[in-house]
């Protein structure tokens, strides 16, 4: 299942800065608003799962999307003072893009 996953643990990724819910079409999104456009690091690769954005509308959600556990530094998300605290979230591959920048906390 893990074959075909574009990213590996340790890779820097950026969550796409996209707002499908702002359009006229009804959508179901699993990428929380507070992570859009944010940079993180892949912590784990879980294999591929049918895309819930399609399952939510009765479609099969195929091809399955690789799912990643991605780690973000807590402070930059809320413009707080730097700390060691983090947030992890599970994100599907189509929401991620490579992040070349080296600063992510």
């Amino acid at each position, binding site marked *: 299942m893990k074959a075909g996953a574009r990213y590996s643990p340790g890779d820097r990724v950026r969550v796409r800065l996209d707002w499908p*819910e702002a359009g006229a079409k009804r959508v*179901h*999104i699993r990428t929380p*608003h507070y992570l859009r456009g944010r940079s993180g690091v892949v912590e784990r690769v879980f294999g591929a799962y049918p895309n*819930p954005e399609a*399952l*939510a509308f*009765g479609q099969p959600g195929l091809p399955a999307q690789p799912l990643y556990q991605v780690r973000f530094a807590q402070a930059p998300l809320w413009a707080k003072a730097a700390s060691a605290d983090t947030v992890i979230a599970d994100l599907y591959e189509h929401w991620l893009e490579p992040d070349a920048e080296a600063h992510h906390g």
Partner: protein
Amino acid sequence: MRAMHDLGGVEPMASAAIDREEHALTQFDKNVDALMYLLSHPSRRIIRVDELRRAIESFTPLQYSSLTYYEKWLQAMHDLLVEKGVLTREEIAQKCAALRAETAT
């Protein structure tokens, strides 16, 4: 631009105290939970959990804030059963009327 249910970090809730009171489940809660389990069971797959969430996410803000957790589930199940043609709006309304008449006597 965030959707109503996409609550991470959203003020003023993110600064509010958490009500830690324990709520025992009512028979209603248990029935609704079990109904959803049976409808989503792989042997039936009538309503997927992703669909239930999508239906809840398309509530009006008033519905979202005024219904309890399991009332939301039930309203969403109702909407999806009608959407999928498993039950019709009319037969549900008729059944409710019949039950109301029964309990009134």
